[in-house]
């Protein structure tokens, strides 16, 4: 129980300081808006075929703005020399991970809540599929991405050029999840006839989330050693 209590405390601390500075969240949302604008240049919103790339755009936004937040989550601790403080505090490394994960996850959910409707609005996208399943896919995909992302951010924070290292570590590891999530989103948004295969993709992503979350939990002790 202590594990979760300290994790919640840590997440609260991160979110509270984020609420005060609004540094990361604002950057993430503006960046998401900019990605949408860039995509509107790349794919003409007036063209009907653009509808096909919407699921991909959603995930590009989540991944790119997610990376921005993940980069910050451990570097800010190191910059303030508070990492050692967290490590010597009477709590397990797993709860540091869990707390950071919760904070990052909360932030990416906010980014998604703002940017995805914005994307639908700007690209004039008529929502036809099942809304609860769409939310489920977004939730599962962000969960897996942030779970591994937080872990690898802790790993990359040891490097001096961690901003450059993190995407290189994160993208290959998360590709299986991203493939599954993009496929599932595509089916749910455009073609509900093939819903059974979307369910299969959701199962794949869920399995991945569970496996990697457990593995990260077990291995975080080695990453956060002094």
């Amino acid at each position, binding site marked *: 129980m202590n594990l979760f209590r300290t994790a919640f405390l840590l997440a609260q601390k991160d979110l509270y300081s984020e609420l005060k500075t609004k540094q990361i969240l604002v950057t993430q949302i503006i960046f998401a808006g900019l990605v949408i604008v860039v995509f509107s240049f790349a794919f003409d919103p007036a063209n009907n075929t653009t509808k096909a790339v919407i699921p991909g755009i959603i995930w590009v936004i989540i991944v790119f703005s997610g990376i921005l937040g993940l980069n910050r989550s451990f570097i800010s601790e190191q910059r303030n020399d508070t990492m050692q403080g967290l490590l010597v505090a009477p709590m397990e490394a797993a709860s540091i991970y869990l707390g950071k994960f919760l904070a990052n996850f909360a932030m990416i959910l906010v980014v998604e809540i703002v940017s995805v409707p914005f994307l639908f609005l700007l690209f004039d996208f008529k929502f036809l599929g099942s809304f609860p399943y769409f939310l489920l896919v977004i939730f599962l995909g962000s969960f897996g991405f942030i779970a591994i992302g937080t872990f690898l951010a802790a*790993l990359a924070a040891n*490097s001096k050029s961690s901003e450059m290292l993190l995407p*290189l570590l994160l993208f290959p590891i998360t590709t*299986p999840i991203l493939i599954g999530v993009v496929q599932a989103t595509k089916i749910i948004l455009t073609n509900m006839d093939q819903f059974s295969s979307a369910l299969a993709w959701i199962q794949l992503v869920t399995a991945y989330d569970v496996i990697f979350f457990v*593995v990260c939990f077990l291995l975080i002790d*080695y*990453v956060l050693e002094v």
Partner: protein
Amino acid sequence: MSMNLEREKAVLPPSQMTDTKRVSIGKVLFGATIISMLTALYFIFIFANEEKTMRAAQKIFYYHVSSAWLAFLAFFVTFFFSILFLIKRKRIYDTYAYVSAEIGVVFTIIVLTTGPIWARSAWNTWWVWEPRLITTLILFFIYIAYIMIRQMDGVWDKKARLAAVFGIIGFADVPIVFFAIRWWQTKFHPIVFGDGPSQKGGGIEDTMLVALLVTITAFTILYSYLLHKGVSFEKMKITVEQYKERLRESLDK
């Protein structure tokens, strides 16, 4: 991180190494590699029957599959020694993991090069966005990232620890390569061993199977030679580094 800096600058304990015995193992492995490679060439070009539709171009198959096998073996060895390192914390396990990952990357490059060459004659296209190709490519990127962790600055045991963690995480990607073939119902890669479901014309002729197995054996011996050589190089590097540290120490006095 000042503590890490101090440790980085600190004099390392002297290494104990007995190289006299290992040299002979290296020579034996070298000889075995040459002999087995020549045997493999005989089996590929003379013993094995020529494929009906692809003709001689199919011969690259033996090297393609064997390289893939070697890459997987190498990454498994990295995974194995990564776990061992996290448990035992001995530098030699880390060296094995690193060298094995390097060899794996080299042979993944060979797989990704011979693949398109073969694909051009067999499927009439260089590259197909097909699950197994993508996963092999991703595997390549994962281990490039692994090597990039090794190039980080800092003390060796921190780098070794982080790389070991990444080696374990990265290896979790390997089963997908085998899983993907059934998941996406690919039509390009035949399932060579065993009965493939819904695969027409799967299976392999006996002479080709013998040639393939001989090549795989040859590549396994080549791998153990490369691993042995690489580890002794790494050890030399570590020793030189230690001598340099000691020299610096004596100059400072």
